[in-house]
């Protein structure tokens, strides 16, 4: 555990524990993906072996593509996630800049007000949010989801981004002011490019809960037109309880995009967490 005592048994012990837990963490995911490529007999006969030429079967995938409108759901999820992410990053960065750059009356109070949402989950306001969306005619629109997720993502984004914006050098900003740049130009041209790495961290933190959320799509936008992939998968799984090929294929299809994105961005995510952004 320390430099003085990296003895062999200790290292082996550490690897044994970590490896065991890695197996526990990955086993269900691998099991589902592996079995999605098998015939029904293969799934039940030998669930723990990878598909062989004899048990290989894509029947599950053809059922999923034939039944659920997954491409459409996927598109909805993508629109909602990308749009919310855009607004969270833009509005969040702007507010974080205002809070960290200028001293004005009520600055601390405003910071506390915006930080309130980090601890109090937006879900508790659901009853009134639904009423609000009904009143404004936004039920069963993607706009409703985008609004809710933007509000949900803002508090943490502002909190993290203002920490990073405090680190941007004052000299640089003042040099810009002397050159006659407006405050807006300073923000968009000087500050934003410098905090880009932390924006990526915030993006990943914001994206995962939005993509995976079931509660708001279920309540605010359950129509066929606006179903997200999470809700679509949930309903599909409910319908096909006995069709194991289809279920395993649907699960694999839901896992893969997230997994691919994660593998691409995992460095960014882990660097973001370990850089002390969430302390």
């Amino acid at each position: 555990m320390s430099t003085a005592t990296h003895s062999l048994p200790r290292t082996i012990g550490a690897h044994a524990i970590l490896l065991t837990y890695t197996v526990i963490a990955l086993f269900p995911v691998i099991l589902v993906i592996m079995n999605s490529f098998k015939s029904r007999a293969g799934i039940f006969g030998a669930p723990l072996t990878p598909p062989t030429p004899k048990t290989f079967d894509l029947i599950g995938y053809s059922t999923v593509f034939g039944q659920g409108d997954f491409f459409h759901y996927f598109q909805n999820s993508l629109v909602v996630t990308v749009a919310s992410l855009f607004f969270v990053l833009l509005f969040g960065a702007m507010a974080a800049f205002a809070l960290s750059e200028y001293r004005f009356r009520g600055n601390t109070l405003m910071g506390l007000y915006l930080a309130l949402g980090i601890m109090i989950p937006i879900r508790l306001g659901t009853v009134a949010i639904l009423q609000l969306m009904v009143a404004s005619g936004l039920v069963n629109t993607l706009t409703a989801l985008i609004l809710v997720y933007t509000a949900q993502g803002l508090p943490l984004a502002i909190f993290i981004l203002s920490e990073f914006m405090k680190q941007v050098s004052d000299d640089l900003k003042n040099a810009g002011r002397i050159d006659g740049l407006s405050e807006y130009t300073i923000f968009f041209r000087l500050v934003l490019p410098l905090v880009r790495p932390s924006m990526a961290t915030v993006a990943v933190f914001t994206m995962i809960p939005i993509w995976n959320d079931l509660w708001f799509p279920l309540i605010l936008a359950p129509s066929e037109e606006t179903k997200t992939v999470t809700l679509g998968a949930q309903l599909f799984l409910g319908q096909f309880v006995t069709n194991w090929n289809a279920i395993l294929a649907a699960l694999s299809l839901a896992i893969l995009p997230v997994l691919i994105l994660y593998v691409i961005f995992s460095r960014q995510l882990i660097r973001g967490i370990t850089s002390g952004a969430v302390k």
Partner: protein
Amino acid sequence: MAARTRPKKPIRWHIGVFLAPAVLVYTAVMILPLFGTLQLSLFRNIEQSQVFVGLGNFRTLFGDPNWSVNFWNALRNNVWFFIIHMLVQNPIGILLAALLSSPRLRFAAFYRTAIFVPTILSFVIVGFAWKLILSPIWGVAPHLLDFVWLKSLFTPWLGKEQYALTALSLVSVWQFVGIPMMLIYAALLSIPDEVIEAAECDGVTGMAQFWKIKLPLILPSIGIISILTFVGNFNAFDLIYTAQGALAGPNYSTDILGTFLYRAFFGFQLQVGDPNMGAAIATMMFLIILAGVCVYLFLVQTRLRRYQF
């Protein structure tokens, strides 16, 4: 623009412009509905119009056995859900983080990435995948137990009242262990080398070093993961809903406040949904979470601050 901001006491419009979009969206979609929900809990729909009933809904929630039995059941289950997370998820997270942070450990990046995978998956995937694995029809779980000669221990855990909640809590632990692991890992990495070197000069190494030096230094992070776990658990809904449905079966044994709120708000089977009772339950959840956050802020945070650098 620049010329206009030059005078002695200019109104700095740009501050307002920078703040406005975030504050507007946040206030309109989050803060106002939150208070709107608290307010709705004081009203009741009588003959198509909202009538102020004071604490009437809460009297129903705690006094009417139809509601109160369910409420206390959900709260009790939720507390158990939280206890399991605190006793299993956080210690495992700390252990993994301590192992990962040992210097010159090979494959650390691989372990870190792999162990965090479940956390990024949606509840729908997690709930259903585990439902399949634990299902007696598929037989993966008994098959695996057979490897360690424990096959006799297998029962359909999710289908039995006395085990279902614990089983689902452990599934949730499986999913979220990555979060305490990462936060503690970050805290362990940020301990200055001088502190560790000083400890080594004094002969404090290995396990003793972890317990006596590192653990006290990461206490603030343990405080943070505890409050995050608390808020997350008392707000949980998705996993139970996916694995057991809105009725949180078998026989409400996995019902937690989130699923109880959903049923009250939207109704189920024979019962009609009641937004006002839903709001009353949401208010109770709000008060519980608020109490937890206050305890954290006033008690834990002030006590732990002295350890921070």
